[in-house]
């Protein structure tokens, strides 16, 4: 069975600083990987996804993520954080052959200091 670990429960960065949110997955085959963002009281919105090909994927709102098979990681990055990026971020892994069932990590809450 697949699993996802997000080691950082909370992260605080200053506005304008760079950001990296960590995600490690466990899955025996090639995974499908996703990052979702959830603002307070809202549903989850897809930021980006990796299926195959280029290991650096670009998403919405200036986010990118890099798939590193050797490290079983799919870290999310943004070069300059805006106050509106404060939210909860979830990494998820999908299993090929299992429909679109996603397994989510526990999330990382991002706070942005002015």
């Amino acid at each position, binding site marked *: 069975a697949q699993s*996802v670990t997000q080691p950082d*429960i909370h992260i605080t960065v200053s506005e304008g600083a760079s950001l990296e949110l960590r995600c490690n997955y466990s899955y025996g085959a090639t995974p*499908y990987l996703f990052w*979702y963002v959830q603002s307070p*009281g*809202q*549903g*989850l*919105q*897809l930021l980006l*996804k990796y*299926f195959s090909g280029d290991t650096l994927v670009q998403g919405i709102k200036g986010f990118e993520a890099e798939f590193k098979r050797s490290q079983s990681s799919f870290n999310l990055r943004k070069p300059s954080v805006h106050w509106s990026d404060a939210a909860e971020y*979830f990494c*998820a892994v*999908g299993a*090929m*052959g299992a*429909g*679109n*069932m*996603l*397994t*989510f*990590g*526990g*999330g990382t809450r991002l706070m942005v200091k002015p």
Partner: protein
Amino acid sequence: EAGVVQSPRYKIIEKKQPVAFWCNPISGHNTLYWYLQNLGQGPELLIRYENEEAVDDSQLPKDRFSAERLKGVDSTLKIQPAELGDSAVYLCASSLGGLAGELFFGEGSRLTVL
């Protein structure tokens, strides 16, 4: 285009009472999911429908939870009787189906059991 619609957004009930949540997926999306999100945690799959068929309900506590998706469109998730530990956000999502298609989430129904 309308997104995934859920109701009610908030529900407060006393323990042992029944409660029902409704979800209307994006038009044309064959696959519908119910996820449970406890406070400070990532979503966990409860049940997945392909059209009107429940293809994965292994995580649904069947002693008190039930779900249906009549005519393969709207879906209802019911809890009877509710327990204190059921307090959580119940998220509905839909997708076009197929491998690794994007899941679109509703805003969720927040349940508080007193």
